[in-house]
């Protein structure tokens, strides 16, 4: 069997990162963790995960900015980005239009509160 795929879990709430990671590991993936956007970018460049599970509202650098950096980088853009969005933002969409009119596309999204089974199904789709 090939090497286990690496999944990066990013959220500013360590408890949430921990809970999601347990589920991800239980499904047989390797897990990397980051707690804000800047840290996430470092880990992404360093470890090149297969999928990034990415919170939107984070200090230092938000999820949209991280997503844009990934998708504008030829070396990284094949990495799948799954956004975690709060329902209150009611725009349940993977595209985001910046102030300058540019649009960023994530690969998928899961609304909070997260349905872990749904999340794992999406992660599975992007790993196969």
């Amino acid at each position: 069997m090939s090497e286990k795929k690496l999944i990066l879990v990013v959220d500013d709430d360590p408890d949430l990162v921990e809970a999601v990671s347990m589920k991800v590991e239980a499904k047989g993936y390797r897990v990397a963790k980051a707690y804000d956007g800047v840290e996430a970018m470092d880990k992404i460049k360093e470890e090149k995960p297969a999928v990034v599970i990415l919170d939107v509202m984070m200090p230092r650098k938000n999820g949209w900015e991280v997503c844009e950096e990934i998708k504008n980088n030829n070396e990284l853009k094949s990495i799948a980005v799954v956004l975690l969005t709060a329902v209150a933002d009611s725009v349940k969409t993977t595209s985001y239009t910046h102030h300058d009119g540019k649009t960023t596309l994530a690969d998928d999204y899961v609304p909070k509160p997260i349905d872990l089974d749904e999340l794992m199904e999406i992660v599975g789709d992007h790993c196969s």
Partner: protein
Amino acid sequence: MESKNKREKFQSPLSEVSLKRIIKDVFFKPRVLVVDDEERIQKACQRLLSEEGCEVNVAQNGIQGLKMIEEKHYDIVLLDLMMPGMSGLDVLSDLKSRHPDTVVIIITGYATLEHSIKTMKKGAFDFLPKPFTPQELRVVIAKAIESIRTLQDITTEKSRMRVMINTLREGVLTTDHQKRVALANPACLKMFDCHKRSVIGSLVSDVIDESTVLGMIDRASAQPKEMFSEITEEVCVPMGKGRQDLVIGVRCIPFRDRLNRNLGIVTVFHDITALKKVDQLKSDFVSMVAHEIKSPLNSVLMQLNVVLDGLAGELTDKQQDILSRSSAKIKSLSQLASELLDLSKIESGLINQEREELNLEEMMKEHVKLYRSKADAKSIHLICKPSVKSTFIMGNKINMEEVLSNLISNAIRYTPNGGKIEVWADENCDCAMIHVADTGFGISPDALENIFERFYREKNEKTRYINGTGLGLAIVKSIVDSHHGTIQVDSVVDQGTHFTISLPRTVYKI
């Protein structure tokens, strides 16, 4: 032809025209001057009109008549055409040029068509062909008094309106179809820092340089006949250093005639600076609290789910059951926080919302269609009763949809299986009404007082298991309030509930 008809109509039912009554209705004692060289006519007019309550003076000829008119104002002048010295026609021209308000009635022995046209052109009000009966005189005078009264009413109304508009704290600007200013009250000129003395007649673009407002007026003027909507925007007006910028809610309303042709645009400016500030503070607070509550709740939920999944070791059935319940509770708390955010968003949106002409029945039909499957799932008979005629209101479409969907989904939730829900629109002379009536559990009299309060939910043995956050009716109430409407509820426990929303029928057409 038309005037002849009028006269006949005037004469026939009141054989004795009650000139006295008409005079009593006006607040002045009509002053009449009779200018005629025939003593017989002078006497007759004087006697008859005095009896009827007029103050009557007599002049022997044109020159004397004009002199008397210079000394004091006459409401009505009865003028003979054929007199020695100055002719009636010359007197008429002179009089009209200096006293345009005075009503002149021509007395003439030979009323030819040519003559009539000539005198009418010079401003005569009516004719009295000689010889005339007392009744004919009464009718003509009564008509003249009616006309004076109408003119006075218009003048009074105009100045009352002017005082009202000038004392408003809202800015009001009226432009005609050529986008020239027809009216601009002091509040409006102050908001846009306009110091010009007279703006009436100027192009609106020379008076206001705020491009948003000019654009709105253009858009409102360009609306096709079949469309009628109010255009709303918020405009920020910088007030220079040291002074706070103004936030102004601007509403542009087309002003149309009976044939739906645009006569011009009425623009209303409402200073919402303070409101916006308070609202910002409030929504910042609500969203801060909601986010701070939501994120930890979501995190707890995640952790519970991980345990429930057996990732932290095997669970007994009992443990599984308890954790599932606590997970469901936390989920609904998180839902509540989301709805609180929605409410705060809706309320901010109500400060300055766009309105358009809405057909209530059409909207209701759409919503009934939308909720059909939910109703069918509970075997509830959900129908939209047809109205006698189409009912229109001026309202915000998204808001009104929110109202309908809240009321209908509530009705479905609080009606037992096999019940009936009816939705319909009707109207009376001032209001358009939305009705939603169900055969549900009903609301107890104690609870009725509180149902529009935020987070209030009636709970009894029947409704205990119905989910909800208790914000739906609070949202409905806020929206109805912002449309200057009222909401009424009649309910009998175990028989059903009937919600009635009355919205003012705003008429923008003349």
